[in-house]
């Protein structure tokens, strides 16, 4: 697992592979502290027969943090275990994605959507995630709607939605037309200095 690129070591030792019935082994170095903190497999893992695209990993610090929070507080995690989970994660993502992608293609669509992912999870034995993920997605959608009014993203995106006629109805003072006679999207001040919700950070376009 140290990126030594070896296949099952029976072949390296000149031993026939039949000995290893059922499971296969990889040689572990004597000094298996897993010292390297960088986990770049740029040369590509030679330990599988097929070419693997999973040379991209999530940062080990993030992975390790999640692991640490998952186990009891007094628990520790061996370095090679962290690296291993890091690889497993990439495998997991690819696993789900190819299943979702297949379904997508079957339905003649080009973009993988949330449903495809949820379907893939349920097919691949992760159906226990489906409900929590749906809930999570729902909360996210609601939160995103809320944020649009606060200016968390550029309001020019939300402009079409936010500036309904109602927003202006009772609060638009007579003097909104600017000096050169053109009506522009300038900051609107009411006489009571109440900012109109959703119209706080309008930019000149």
């Amino acid at each position, binding site marked *: *697992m140290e990126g030594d690129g070896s296949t099952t070591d029976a072949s390296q030792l000149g031993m026939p592979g039949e000995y290893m019935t059922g499971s*296969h082994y*990889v040689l572990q170095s004597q000094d298996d502290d897993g010292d390297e903190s960088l986990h770049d497999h740029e040369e590509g893992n030679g330990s599988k027969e097929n070419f693997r*695209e999973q040379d991209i990993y999530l940062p080990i610090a993030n992975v390790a943090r999640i692991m640490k929070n998952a186990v009891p507080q007094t628990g520790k995690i061996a370095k090679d275990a962290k690296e291993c989970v890091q690889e497993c994660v990439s495998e997991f993502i690819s696993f789900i994605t190819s299943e979702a992608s297949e379904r997508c293609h079957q339905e003649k669509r080009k973009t993988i959507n949330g449903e495809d992912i949820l379907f893939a999870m349920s097919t691949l034995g992760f159906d226990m995630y489906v409900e929590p993920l749906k809930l999570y997605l729902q909360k996210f959608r609601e939160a995103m709607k809320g944020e649009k009014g606060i200016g968390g*993203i550029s309001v020019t995106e939300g402009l079409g939605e936010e500036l309904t006629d109602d927003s202006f109805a009772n609060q638009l003072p007579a003097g909104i037309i600017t000096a050169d006679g053109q009506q522009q999207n300038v900051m609107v001040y009411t006489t009571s200095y109440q900012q109109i919700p959703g119209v706080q950070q309008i930019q000149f376009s």
Partner: protein
Amino acid sequence: MHVKMSGDNVNHASNSKGISLPMTRVKMIMKSSPDVSSINQEALLITTKATELFVQYLALSSFNNGSGKDNKTLLYSDLANTVEGTETFQFLTDILPKKIFARDYLKLIEEHPIEEADN
């Protein structure tokens, strides 16, 4: 604080939406699968969140499945054993071979001699 990157306002979501994994990296991994053209924002979000859940699940199951000698540390071997024993994790068997020290392997060979092929 909220840096808006063009076409990628999902990034600020990863801080404020309770996800601790970088979504752009997740997207990279997803795109490295063959035949994947595009992924919508929700799909990316769900996958990232699911990945978090997966890490938690794998770590905790393996930890509880501990070797017993030092059951306060999660070891590589715990992971390998858990993967072997759990159907849902079977897709990981190829990347999680059991490790064995060379000296132990040679001992095993000695104890169970088999006919050798040509050297």
